[in-house]
């Protein structure tokens, strides 16, 4: 290491009390920011779980739908109309709705039922037990192996339950990429069985899942669907729409945003304040270094190094603490929704760099202003 930087390093870490205070300040700021944004991104990921799991490229829905769980049924003619749009390879109906099942133990449990198109089973999940063809068997349902499955009791192939006076039998256990936000289990069955077992309104199609012939066709499909008075969204657009709903219409986003800003400000004020005192306390010494012959820019490097080094270590500690706590929480609460994403980490990293930049800016201004003559005069 360059000698002056080593000097800066020693001046910083040998002041154990202040160094610890700096690290704690940054660590908590990072912890809070990462925690907040992780919880939020966890919630967002879960809120789009059905969209992720079914994997369809384009979703057709009523324009008023803002959240996958609250679908607005569409009449059958829409399906026919969509099928006849140029560029559509195929289009299938999806049923999505809530139901109450009565378990063998006598307990009632609400579930989400997804009814897949009978012919294609488009959007079918990957099974870890059972065969997908068995979904056509009498009363067949497939349970999803996620954090909620235990709410259905001891589930295995052949387990039965009651659903609106119909019998239901588990014929398969499925694996999914994302589990849902609402803390209830998911059952897959066929579209026809879903609308037969679950009382519904005049219209029964919750969504139309579309496979376009190619990516270029998507725009055309969207325009045509719009003419029908409905909306076609790509998977990403739909997820974004759901995310926007949670961000802007539930107050959740605003609260998380405020908390994140507050965490940032708390971190900034603790670290900025401590770093400033650190500089002030060493100001005369920096002046003495100047008198001895250190150039202004060398002192700037020293301070930048001190601030950056502290920021990086504090960032590491904060992310570490966050990982620890989220992991521990997930062990205790399987539904705990928090995702440490790359975006979250990058965001916190940028915020920490801003804290370091502001702190060193204050320090550098002080140090550049000091006149060796004043040090000399005492």
């Amino acid at each position: 290491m360059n000698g002056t930087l080593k000097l800066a390093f020693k001046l910083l870490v040998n002041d154990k009390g202040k160094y610890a205070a700096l690290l704690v300040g940054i660590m908590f700021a990072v912890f809070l920011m990462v925690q907040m944004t992780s919880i939020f991104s966890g919630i967002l990921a879960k809120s789009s779980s059905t969209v992720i799991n079914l994997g369809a490229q384009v979703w057709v829905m009523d324009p008023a739908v803002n959240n996958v769980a609250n679908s607005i049924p569409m009449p059958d003619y829409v399906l026919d109309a969509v099928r006849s749009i140029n560029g559509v390879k195929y289009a299938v109906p999806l049923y999505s709705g809530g139901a109450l099942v009565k378990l063998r133990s006598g307990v009632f449990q609400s579930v989400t039922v997804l009814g897949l198109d009978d012919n294609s089973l488009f959007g079918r999940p990957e099974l870890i037990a059972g065969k997908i063809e068995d979904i056509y068997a009498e009363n067949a349902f497939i349970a999803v192996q996620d954090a909620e499955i235990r709410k259905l009791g001891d589930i295995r192939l052949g387990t039965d339950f009651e659903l609106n006076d119909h019998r239901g039998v588990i014929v398969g256990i499925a694996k999914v990429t994302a589990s849902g936000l609402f803390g209830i289990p998911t059952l897959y069955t066929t579209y026809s069985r879903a609308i037969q077992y679950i009382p519904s309104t005049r219209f029964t199609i919750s969504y139309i899942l579309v496979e376009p012939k190619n990516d270029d066709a998507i725009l055309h499909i969207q325009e045509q669907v719009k003419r029908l008075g409905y909306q076609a969204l790509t998977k990403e657009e739909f997820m974004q729409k759901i995310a926007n709903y949670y961000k802007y219409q539930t107050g959740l986003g605003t609260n998380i945003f405020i908390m994140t800003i507050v965490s940032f400000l708390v971190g900034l004020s603790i670290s900025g304040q401590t770093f400033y005192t650190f500089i002030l306390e060493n100001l005369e010494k920096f002046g003495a270094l100047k008198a001895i012959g250190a150039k202004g820019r060398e002192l700037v490097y020293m301070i930048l190094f001190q601030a950056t080094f502290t920021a990086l270590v504090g960032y590491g500690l904060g992310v570490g603490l966050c990982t620890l706590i989220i992991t521990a929480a997930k062990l205790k609460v399987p539904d705990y929704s928090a995702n440490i994403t790359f975006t979250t980490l990058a965001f916190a990293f940028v915020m920490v760099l801003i804290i370091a930049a502001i702190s060193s800016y204050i320090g550098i201004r002080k140090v550049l202003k000091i006149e060796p003559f004043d040090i000399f005069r005492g």
Partner: protein
Amino acid sequence: MNSAVSAHELIKWFGEGDAKTFAVSGVSFEANFGEIFFIVGPSGSGKTTLLSMISGILRPNSGTVAIDSVEIWKLNPDRIAEFRLNKVGFVFQDYHLFPRLTTAENVAIPLILKKHDWDESIREAVGYLEIVGLKNKAELPPVKLSGGEQQRVAIARALVSKPDILIFDEPTASLDGDTGRRIMDFVKTEVLNDKRCILIVTHDSRIFEFADRIMTMEDGKIVGIENRRDGAE
């Protein structure tokens, strides 16, 4: 041989308009290698201001300073910093040692600023601590040392870059009489050599006996230079 220090018509004022005060008003003198040159005078007479202009810390309003024939105020700021680093050793009145560094690290600072290797700088610093009789305190922080010992650490730090000019401002002000005399004795016998010029600002008449010449200032002007060396040059 060149003069170690050659100051010509130095003028320095502070403030503007009504508040304008002349700290140094037209000072010219020369100091030689191999001599201990004292600057004395009442408080506010401009001693520190003069010393700062000579050592490249404070730019004069007019006049010139030549150190070993190099006119320092013609250099750019980076060169002046390098000049201070390479040619001048400072012993500040309140030492300005870093409390969080060891004694040896404090002494090594000028070498580190000169981009010498860290370990080598520390080794050299310990050598200078040995010269000032503090080798056994090399690993301690300066606060664990007495005032006189800290003064010697500051001297070691000033010596480590083998400067031509050594600047002391009130070296004995915060020391008791005995310690002050011992330090000055050390400076005279161990630090002074014929390639070095030592400039000392002091109020302390107890150490006047160590001076080769004493220049007295009043109101920013020289009022006399007294030769103290027995049987002068």
